[in-house]
């Protein structure tokens, strides 16, 4: 394992992509970044620009309006980057899978590395998912 990958695992900067979600997963992600869960001890920080990001936390079914934006945000993110699908909608479409706006799920559009199911997933389970992924990453 080389030094840069080790450093990447210790310092994940997160950009939050909300691709047509019902805001429930977004609220859980906001909770995740509060002092109670303290993800900064893993080096995880929320950043404002996709150019600074290492992780794209994507929520929601990708609807037809969001399709181009999600692609563009993925292209703007410097590689290597990790894409995390948070919530049932981003993983599979959830209850909206037959909706007229459905253009996703997310893995049809961009390569997804981690799936965290739940409607919405708890902050604990988001942390658990990312930590499991970091252990597997080589």
């Amino acid at each position, binding site marked *: 394992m080389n*030094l*840069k*990958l*080790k*450093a*990447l695992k*210790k*310092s994940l900067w997160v950009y939050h992509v909300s691709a047509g979600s019902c805001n429930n997963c977004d609220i859980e992600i906001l909770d995740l970044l509060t*002092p109670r869960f*303290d993800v*900064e*001890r893993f*080096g995880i920080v*929320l*950043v*404002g*620009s996709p*150019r*600074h990001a*290492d992780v794209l936390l994507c929520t929601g079914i990708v609807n037809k309006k969001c399709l181009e934006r999600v692609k563009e945000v993925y292209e*703007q993110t*410097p*590689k*290597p980057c990790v894409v995390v699908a948070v919530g049932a909608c981003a993983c599979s479409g959830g209850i909206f899978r037959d909706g007229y706006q459905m253009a996703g799920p997310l893995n049809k559009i961009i390569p997804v590395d981690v799936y965290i199911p739940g409607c919405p997933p708890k902050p604990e389970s988001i942390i658990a998912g990312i930590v499991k992924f970091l252990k597997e990453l080589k």
Partner: protein
Amino acid sequence: MSGLYILGYFIVSFFALSIIGLFIFWIDRKITARLQWRVGPPWYQNFADIIKLSGKEVLIPENSNKFMFIFSPILALISATICGTILLLILRSELGFEGDLILFVYLLTLPSLSIILGGSASGNVLASVGISRELKLLLSYELPFICGIIIPTIKTHFTTSLIEILKYQQLNGSHIFSISGIIGFIIILISSTGKIGVVPFDLAEAETEIAGGALIEYSGILLGFYKLAKSILLFVIPAFIILLYLGGTTLDNLLGVLIFILKYIFVVVLITLIRNTNPRLRIDQALKFFWGWLTLIGIVGILFALSGV
């Protein structure tokens, strides 16, 4: 002192300043975390950030000025390192001449100017909002900052040599133990938070509203250069304040270094406390604050210093 010696000093102090600066940045983040009842990041966090950024892809926007876009972060890093090198040379009493205080004040504006250059070269709308704020902030904090520099100059019998100020305080006690000294210390501490760009005056980089401001288009190692320059500034500015007000320090023996570190951590903790107990100001509020109350208090401090209190 030959040119080669200075160049060698510059390179050595670049590595030393980077390591010290990144470590100080960790202290800042750890204190912030403890104040918010969190555990906080481990000690190697900022080193991991920089190493990670060096391994990332560098994206250069299509409609940017490519030369300025790549050159400005390097300029920021070099100018911050030059400030640090001069300060280290002065603290070790190796170099000093009449007027180096003025030179130092000019050099300290270069990192801010390079952020403005880089942001305007990136061709982004939000970056232009960021640089307009940074420019206004630069104009507003310079005035009280200069007031805070004039006070120790007056108290050291109108000298503009940093080494004279240092030696005067070694003989006669620090400048802070007087009314004008306390006023000057408070003013320079508050305006230096604007210079470093931490929370009450971080509106140029406001991540929640303009998504990183001037740095929005930067990625990879170029962003790392800016982060490194900022952490070097986090070393340089408190050390400059110590030199002006809490002086009487020598870096020649072990005891002097230890006392310097204690004073240094005191100033950094004060800056961190300011940053954690204040919300971000709007640009008009910041301008009113700096040019209004702070400059008024600064002028009162200068009058006190002139009358020898």
